[in-house]
């Protein structure tokens, strides 16, 4: 294997230094002095002038005209009722170094969120009677605004891209499908030239049934649930999914995935 004999010595921002110091102490690598004559160390933070300057040449991550596939898991941070977790697969075609388009399929986990489960146990309100999201299919566009690299331990370098994402598609509830839009930002960390960890923070917007429906959610486990007029105390008749009102709903999602670039 080719040994690395060339290093880059750079003046870096204090914040990066601080982060590096913290990491170096936390991973406990022995310190070593590298003697480079002072007159060879860069004195300025300006860039050299070229006729047609570009930021990077011979880039490690060649994601222009490339396909990448990946799997991911997600968490709906602002979902109060339905199960907040999901899993999915993503497929992307990178048109060039800046733009990519792809397809995302995400399957929601069934059941209730922890909060909704607690409400059920404590108050006998069963939000499982309300329609829940099943899966979503999205056409995803990414604008890769930044390509850079990180060196946390000086032993290696990780490339990274930061991008904005715009997606549109359908979300399927147990009874009905709704059109959906999503905007977000994401970042990929390339451990190798192909394998990357992907993080996405997306805001979804779509029509969705309102799960809070009076006289429909008491499951009979708590006699005190609900008001009068119930044939069985604390038990509402099971409502049909179509009886729930709908409104525009926003959900913030955090997704983590592993992608492989071909």
């Amino acid at each position, binding site marked *: 294997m080719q*040994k*690395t*004999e*060339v*290093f*880059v*010595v*750079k*003046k*870096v921002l*204090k914040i*990066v*230094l601080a982060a*590096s*110091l913290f990491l*170096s102490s936390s991973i406990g*690598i*022995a*310190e*070593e*002095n*590298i003697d*480079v*004559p002072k*007159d*060879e*160390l*860069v*004195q*300025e*933070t*300006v*860039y*050299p*002038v*070229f*006729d*047609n*300057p*570009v*930021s*990077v*040449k*011979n*880039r*490690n991550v060649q994601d222009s005209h490339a396909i990448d596939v990946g799997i991911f898991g997600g968490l709906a941070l602002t979902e109060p009722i339905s199960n907040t977790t999901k899993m999915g697969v993503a497929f992307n075609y990178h048109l060039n170094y800046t733009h990519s388009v792809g397809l995302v399929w995400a399957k929601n986990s069934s059941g209730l969120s922890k909060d909704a489960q607690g409400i059920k146990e404590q108050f006998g309100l069963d939000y499982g009677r309300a329609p829940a999201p099943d899966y979503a299919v999205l056409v995803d566009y990414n604008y890769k605004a930044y390509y850079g*690299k990180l*060196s946390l*331990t*000086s*032993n*290696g*370098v990780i*490339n990274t891209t930061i991008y904005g994402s715009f997606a549109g598609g359908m979300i399927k509830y147990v009874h009905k499908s709704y059109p959906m839009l999503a905007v977000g930002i994401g970042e990929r960390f390339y451990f190798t030239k192909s394998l990357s960890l992907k993080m996405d923070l997306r805001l979804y917007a779509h029509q969705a049934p309102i799960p809070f429906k009076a006289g429909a959610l008491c499951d009979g486990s708590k006699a005190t649930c609900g008001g009068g007029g119930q044939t069985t105390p604390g038990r509402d008749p099971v409502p049909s999914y179509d009886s729930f009102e709908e409104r525009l709903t926003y959900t913030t999602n955090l997704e983590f995935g592993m992608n492989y670039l071909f």
Partner: protein
Amino acid sequence: MKKNILKGCLIHILAFVSFLGWHSNADAATKRNQKTVVSTTRKQSPANSKIYTATKSTLQRSQLANALGLMKSGQYPQAANSFLSLSRRSDLASERSQIKYYLGLCMMEMSLNQAAAFQFVDVIKSSDKRWTRQAIEKLLIVTDRLGDETLLNYAIQRIDVNQVPTQYRDMLYFRLAEIKHKAGLFTEAVNLYNKVGSQSRFYYSALYGKGLAQAEGKQPDLALASFKQLLDMRSSARVTDVNKVAAQLSIARTYYQKQNWEKAIEAYSAIPRDSFMWHEALFEKTWAMLRAARFRSTLSNFQTLHSTFYEDAYIPETLLLRSIVYLYICKYDEMEKVVDLFDTQYGPISKKINAYLNQNHSSENYFQEVNKAFIVKKDAESNKSFSIPYNAIKHIAEEGDVRRTYSYLKKLNEERKLVDENPNLRATPMGVYASGIITNRLKSARSIIGEMVKAHLLNMRVELKDLNEQASFIRYEMINGKKETLKKRINGKTMAEETDSENQDRAFYIKNGYEYYPFQGEYWLDEVGNYHYLGKQSCE
């Protein structure tokens, strides 16, 4: 002296009166004025120009006066047309110099410097002493604006410095110094550079030129003093100020000339990275480091110079230099890679240059090639195919003589555009006349550039041939070195190869805001110049 001034004033008054119509006195005034015009050093601008004529024809007199009136009122295109028409008339042959001079003045005002220059040359050639001095003076100005060295030299060789108005003397001294400098007359050049006043716009260039002439005249200490003076004078200018950086670079070069490698390295290191001269400084600093036997540092710089940011640079000797450094530190594998790279990169370039030169192309073909290089340099997106390898033609495009002539060509193009885009001018006799002159000059300038390109290519061919031979010697040394290493190994005198990189526990040590990380094949703009070779020598 006082007497002369009084005489001059009197004659001008008389001339003015004659212009107003006192015909009886006109002849006498003109005769006296012939002397005055030669001796005066007052600036002649279109606004205070006068017609001095010996003609007795009222019609001719009024036609001349009309043309002058148009010029005075700022109607230069109309005035120029009138003067052009008058200049072609045989009955005004005796006034032709004067008419041509005013025609030139009108053209100057219209920014048609090349066309104007030709009028002044005509006046100078006519040997009409009444107008020669003014014509030379104006020729000096227009050629300076154009950057036309041929005509500039033509003007300068005919001028008496003492008769040139004070405001142009600095420019004249500077240009004269340049001519002497180019001719290798360094002492005379220094004397002339010294005469350029400190208030002149040529002062800093003169100071730089002076240092250069002193350095070329083998007076490095004096040269250093001149460059340091320039640097001090520009100390408050912005970091990338051209004069400041040029002075700093020259200081480094002078130390190199004095073989003071460490001082040279220090001076090269002070060149700002965001100056266009930084690349040259880096390259030269590498040589200084090699001479100072700082091999590790030399290899560090090569990492930058051989990065993909310089993939279109023509720097064949750096590859051979790098291989020689590897030879010094017994890195034969690396050495082989670099020599192979030289063959891969510059072998085809050499072949293509040879083929092109053997095809007997015209000057225009050579010009077209370099012109494409200028276009691509400005706009990388423009798709141009080159018959001469881009590295080579780009390098030629950056040569001083080519750049200067190309800049002159650009000014000619601007001038032609000025005529072509003005319908009121284009269709007039003046427009057609100016257009003809500019077209001819354009053709000539393109041809000159073509010849320059050809000359540079011929030099390149010789250089590459020479470097190719050197590459063969280097290969021989490499094989020899490998053989010696093997012999030692067979004899059991082996030494474990050590490099800093073997220590996989390499930690980072942050000192004064610096951090390091390994190079992994990717080149970043902000990293250019910050690569450091940390390998060690492998000699046994």
